[in-house]
């Protein structure tokens, strides 16, 4: 804009030479004007659109050049140029000392001595007690019904007005191995409290994004076979502990005939729960013409083994809020880990991942 003003000024000037000179100088000294600084909306949007178009064109050029280079390299039989990998949090993560290592003796000793070893070594079968907070409404009961179908050997007891500590005692007497308390807030299940027994840790999770079975398209109906468990990405010490805790909810003897799999996938401290029925299939695939190696088998149909999943059961995400040593006791208990909000979120400080 300023350029135009100056040009106008130059035109209006009487003495052509001087002003023309100035005109030449000014653009060099002139600062670059951002599109956002232009006050006129039409002009601003026009400039911005132009900018974007230029960027897009450049990008396309780059991509073309890259593709051409790799094609050329392949044709010549050389190595194609390195493919660029985008930076993600997962691959720029620096692992610190809390990550479990495969050769950690301490870890195994700890595992043997921890609260879940009895269940995980199959000395006791898991028996789960599910209950709710005092006021249960709307989606709560539906969610609990589905939980009952997911976790084998689980029982639901109504809450009444019992204190949680009393419930823990009651469960101990009846030889349960863990308690799940589903907490409802504003008519939505909001939090999950996982209490191990007899003196197991208490994990408090925040529940979000609950999708019930009936809301899932093409859902399947689970059978009552014992499910297989898949626990992904619980790499740190804390994550390992939480993973074992979750594992102790399920019987350690999956019935593979049932082809049921329950997944707890941990990603960036969010634990995603999924429940599927799977099937292995043989897929016929025509080999692509791109791959140099497959030149020999060009034209033939390749058979590949695939697993296909059908989702059944609820879908939700958990986020660990606190892990307390011992059974439920907020005042006197010792907290192993509490979620603290730091002003700067540094991704290398993932706790469960």
């Amino acid at each position, binding site marked *: 804009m300023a350029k135009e003003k100056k040009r106008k000024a130059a035109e209006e000037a009487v003495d052509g030479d001087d002003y023309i000179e100035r005109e030449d100088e000014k653009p060099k000294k002139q600062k670059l004007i951002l599109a956002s600084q232009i006050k006129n909306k039409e002009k601003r949007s026009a400039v911005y659109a132009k900018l974007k178009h230029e960027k897009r064109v450049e990008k396309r050029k780059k991509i073309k050049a890259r593709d051409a280079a790799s094609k050329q390299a392949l044709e010549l039989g050389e190595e194609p140029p390195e493919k660029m990998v985008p930076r993600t949090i997962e691959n720029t993560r620096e692992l610190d000392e809390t990550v479990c290592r495969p050769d950690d003796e301490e870890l195994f000793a700890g595992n043997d001595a921890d609260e879940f070893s009895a269940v995980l070594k199959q000395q006791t079968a898991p028996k789960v007690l599910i209950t709710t907070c005092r006021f249960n409404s709307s989606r709560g009961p539906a969610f609990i019904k589905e939980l009952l179908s997911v976790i084998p050997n689980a029982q639901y007891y109504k809450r009444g007005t019992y204190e949680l500590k009393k419930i823990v005692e009651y469960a101990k007497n009846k030889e349960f191995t863990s308690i799940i308390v589903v907490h409802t807030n504003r008519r939505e299940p909001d939090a999950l409290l996982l209490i191990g027994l007899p003196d197991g840790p208490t994990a408090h999770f925040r529940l979000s994004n609950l999708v019930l079975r009936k809301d899932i398209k093409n859902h399947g109906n689970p059978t009552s076979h014992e499910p297989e468990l898949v626990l992904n990405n619980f790499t740190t010490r804390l994550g390992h502990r939480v993973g074992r805790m979750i594992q102790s909810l399920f019987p350690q003897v999956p019935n593979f005939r049932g082809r049921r799999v329950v997944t707890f996938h941990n990603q960036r401290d969010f634990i995603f729960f999924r429940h599927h029925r799977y099937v292995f299939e043989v897929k016929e695939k025509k080999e692509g013409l791109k791959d140099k190696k497959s030149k020999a088998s060009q034209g033939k149909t390749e058979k590949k083994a695939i697993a296909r999943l059908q989702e059944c059961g609820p879908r939700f*995400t958990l986020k660990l809020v606190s892990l307390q040593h011992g059974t439920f006791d907020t005042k006197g208990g010792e907290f192993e880990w509490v979620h603290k909000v730091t002003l700067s979120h540094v991704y290398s400080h993932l706790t469960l991942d």
Partner: protein
Amino acid sequence: MQNDDVIWDVIRHHHCSYMAKIQTGNFCRNPYNVTGICNRSSCPLANSRYATIRDHDGIFYLYMKTIERAHMPNKLWERVKLPKNYMKALEIIDKHLEYWPKLLVHKIKQRLTKMTQYRIRMVKLSKKVREKIMTVPRKEVKRESRREEKALRAAQIENVIEKELLERLNKGVYPDICNYDEEIFNKLLDKNKEEEQEEEEEEEAEVEYVEGDYELEEEEELEEDIEDMGDFLKANNFEDIEGDEDDLEEQPAKKKAYVSYPLKQDDGTEKVRRKGKKVVVEVERDEDMGNRQHNVM
């Protein structure tokens, strides 16, 4: 000087700042009022001889005012501490208010009863455990939901699960899944194993940190084995889990429905997974292993 009637007249018919008019009646907000109602007999300002019970920190005090001290508002109210015991408190009230009008004494005792009752309730309630409502600032809630979405996208759960299941299939964890064509599957499995073997050795070094993925899954498999071995353990009093693997070879006949322990690779080395260990230890097999029944699916 101090004429109660005049005071009452002025207060009632003009303005009393302690009076609160509600639908159901007139109430008195004066803290020294016995009944709490705006009445000629209950007004602490319009009665020169008056008494109340007030509660401070769970202890009840009997307050009395007499006309002799009417000109000293600072020292107007005389205070007597009442014991926590209800009966004793009643006695003390009787002692102090012996020659006072019966109506007032009666009202005071009623008040004492009510206060004792609510004190008991308060104590009971404080002992009870109640849920505490904690609020989360909205910014945090939004932030968390945004992060969750991104994490979900980064996770690619379905793909990961499918891969995982295929790996387990390749390792032979599933003894008897009956929904596919045997031949093709066997061929495929062999093929896959060949392809993967070359890569495997390179991957070993990286396996350490990624191991979190496999580790628990391996435990799963081991546990599946252990279930079968469970009977063995009890029958043969074996405590050492690793030892069992060897024993099992010798006694395959004892197995029930399960055909064998599938975890063996074709290449002659055995991956022994120790309970809880993340290490994938390669142990050379014995000669016997060759005779083992191969998994017939």
